[in-house]
């Protein structure tokens, strides 16, 4: 069985899964239950400045009835700070093997930060996470993402914290920034012990078409809130990879706690492969409860066994070397779509996608082998037999397929459309190489045409 234990900047936990600093980690009673369910750690919901909350805090983006993401305007913990600190100490005493990290956010004054660090350390907590990410409410008061969006502030506050902190300090980054690398480098410069990302994204989840009020509606008003959940995972993975491939950040060797839409063990494995060495989860827990930890661990462990990974450390960053840029991609790499006719249910979603919006290389083939047009049946034809028996089969004309992979993505059937690698018959070449060796081809359409004809590239 794979070893799921981690040591993250000196913070140890029996598995890499921590509750993110959020409503699931709001109180001692909750975190007790989460640890009973098997969570490896918890980042306590941010403590610090006094706040008050509102009703209708959460909006959601749904696919049908299924919630894909939550948007929220809830602030940091509104519970008295003394209560939080007392419960943190109790939880840590009760669960010595679990990671208890405390998220903090106070006014941007050195004495305020020194004070909160000291009080957190007094609880016996394993680490501190600096919340530079909260995008609503707190940012209006100069905290949260108001700090995270300005690398200089990030660096300054982190320095204040590092002046006094004796336990590991994690700097949590906001994604509401053009280049995530900049605040990360600031944290590195201030000698932070670790990074975490992403916090929530600025968002407005919708407008109620009956009342014309924003969703969620707070007494007739609404505004941007933090967006989180499955829908943000690709954004989080990109930012994680950006840190892992940045020379300064990667050279500094800070461990990164990854979060942003992790809902399944598969998501978790992907975050590990792109460089995260601990994982934080919130929205999926808010959707389904603490019980999801069981499959997060079980699925990850089974996958690691199958792949021969003995420990989490073996997985971390394994795919980072594949992260590259367009200019380094092989322009001669060729893949075409192939439809498995035995699995195909002839919904024709691939056909319409290809025909209307891609490269018109899927045909509808009748039983006699001829190409037919859609809606070709007689107006008097009807009945299930006629509809099923005369239904044409979508087929890819591989010689014309550019391998765009749209059909593969729209197909509703498991393993029906496969992207098959075929030899292109051309030598490997990248845009970078073309730019260096055949500059004219990259600057002039006539030269491009001549080049394409010579090497045999046909544009559809």
């Amino acid at each position, binding site marked *: 069985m794979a070893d799921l234990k981690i040591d993250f900047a000196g913070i140890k936990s029996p598995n890499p899964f921590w509750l993110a600093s959020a409503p699931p980690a709001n109180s001692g009673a909750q975190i007790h239950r989460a640890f009973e369910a098997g969570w490896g750690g918890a980042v306590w919901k941010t403590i610090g400045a006094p706040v008050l909350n509102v009703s209708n805090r959460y909006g959601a983006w749904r696919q049908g*009835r299924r919630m894909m993401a939550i948007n929220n305007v809830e602030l940091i913990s509104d519970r008295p700070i003394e209560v939080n600190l007392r419960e943190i100490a109790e939880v840590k005493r009760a669960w010595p093997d679990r990671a208890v990290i405390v998220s903090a956010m106070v006014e941007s004054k050195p004495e305020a930060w020194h004070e909160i660090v000291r009080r957190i350390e007094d609880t016996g907590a394993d680490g501190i996470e600096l919340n530079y990410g909260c995008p609503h409410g707190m940012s209006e008061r100069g905290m949260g993402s108001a700090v995270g969006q300005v690398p200089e502030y990030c660096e300054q506050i982190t320095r204040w914290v590092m002046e006094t902190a004796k336990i590991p300090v994690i700097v949590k980054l906001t994604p509401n920034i053009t280049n995530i690398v900049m605040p990360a480098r600031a944290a590195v410069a201030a000698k932070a012990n670790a990074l975490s990302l992403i916090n929530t994204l600025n968002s407005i989840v919708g407008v109620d078409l009956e009342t014309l009020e924003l969703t969620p509606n707070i007494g007739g008003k609404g505004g941007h809130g933090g967006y989180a959940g499955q829908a943000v995972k690709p954004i989080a993975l990109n930012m994680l990879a950006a840190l892992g491939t940045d020379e300064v950040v990667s050279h500094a060797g800070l461990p990164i706690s990854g979060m942003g839409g992790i809902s399944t063990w598969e998501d978790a494995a992907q975050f590990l492969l792109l460089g995260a060495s601990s994982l934080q989860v919130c929205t999926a827990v808010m959707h389904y409860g603490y019980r999801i930890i069981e499959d997060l661990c079980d699925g990850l462990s089974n996958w690691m066994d199958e792949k021969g990974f003995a420990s989490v450390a073996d997985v971390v960053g394994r795919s980072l070397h594949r992260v590259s840029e367009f200019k380094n991609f092989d322009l001669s790499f060729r893949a075409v779509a192939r439809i498995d006719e035995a699995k195909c249910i*002839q919904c024709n*979603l691939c056909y319409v996608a290809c025909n209307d919006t891609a490269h018109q290389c899927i045909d509808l083939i009748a039983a006699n082998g001829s190409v037919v047009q859609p*809606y070709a049946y007689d107006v008097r034809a*009807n*009945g299930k037999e*006629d*509809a099923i028996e005369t239904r044409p089969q979508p087929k890819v004309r591989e010689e014309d397929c550019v391998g765009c992979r749209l059909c593969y993505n729209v197909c509703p059937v498991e393993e029906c459309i496969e992207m098959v690698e075929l030899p292109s018959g051309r030598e490997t070449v990248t845009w970078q190489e073309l730019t260096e060796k055949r500059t004219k081809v990259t600057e002039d359409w006539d030269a491009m045409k001549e080049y394409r004809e010579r090497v045999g590239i046909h544009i559809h």
Partner: protein
Amino acid sequence: METDLALSEQLPPLTVHEATVEADRCLYCYDAPCTHACPTHIDIPKFIKKIATRNLRGSAQTIYAANLLGATCARVCPVQELCEGACVLGSEHKPIAIGRLQRYAMDSAKASGVTPRARGVAAGIARKIAVVGAGPAGLSCAGELALRGHDVTVFEKRELPGGLSTYGIIALREPVDVAIDEARMIEGLGVKIRTGVEFGRDVTLERARGEFDTIVLSVGLGATPALGIEGEEAIVDGLAYIEMSKTDAASLRVGRNVVVIGAGNTAIDCATIAKRLRADRVTMVYRRTVSEMTCYEHEYLFALSEGIEFRFLAQPVGVVMKDGEVAGLECLRVELGKPDATGRPAPVVVAESEFVIEADQIVKAVGQVKPNQEKTGLAAAMGLKTEKGYIAVSADFETSVAGVYAIGDCVRARGAASTVMAVQDGKVAARAIEAKLSAVAAEVK
């Protein structure tokens, strides 16, 4: 109209939640097989997508664009054989509940007063058209013509419009109100429906020919044919039985031990009514076997689930009477022989194999008399050619007499008779009539 609870509509309407979840499940196929399988070719993925996006007005209009009687069809269509039977999810999962979603869209259209949009009125060629019979084919044709700007009068000899939807389909599947509301909707399109008026008698053919540019016959079929057996006068007519169950269920006499002769849709319906109205025992008697029954498989399975019994390979030969009351049905045993004209094995009666099935009520549902068998029918009076007993028509539903069209069950020489086929006939005929009248108008100009 009061409906006995036992006969009230079998399936409840979908809730908003059920409809939305089901609509979301639809894959939104392109050139979808469900649309192909639907005789009226409703753009099914389109109307379902509109339910998913909560555009219920648009959903209803999508249905109306292909089928004016969507409310009836949603309830009575044999969807297992048509749209749902062709659903791509059917083979490995469960097909989309297309019928019930259509009902949801049509119920919502009725609640919010959504009516079909005009089909593009051709100015200057509005004509007077008579439609004979206010059943599904006639209402469909009349509505389609009215939406194209024509002046349409429907003549209906019965008291209520709707034809078999009103009188012949059990309330479990379609309550009377649905059929009447649909007829009222068609009236709302400008169609005049004159009920209680028999075309050819109350309105003479001569007068009609003078008054109308085109006549469309949608007269359906006739009464249940005679079995020609002893004591037949004691047998209840199946169509009348169903009609009574819909219009005056309280007065319908149902036996304790009912025998239904026949194995088609109507026979199943009669047996269902008897069972639902508390007959102890209902037995369907059929001279062939389960595989030759003309009802759909799902109807047979439904009948079994209702507790209806079947007696196959039995040929009724007489009614057994006792003290002036029905006491049983005398039958002969049957064996299956070589295929007959219908392609099914011919029933061969076994001599001297008489036996009696006990019954205190016998209902017959053995088809309907065809137009060529009705000596006083309109087909004969108008001198229309027939084909296999049905009124002969061209691909455009024009009869052997120019300007006279026929649609629905009375022309159903091929294929299964069904409401949705009748609706499609009405639609196709209306288009053909419009095209012909337009061409004539263009020539005159």
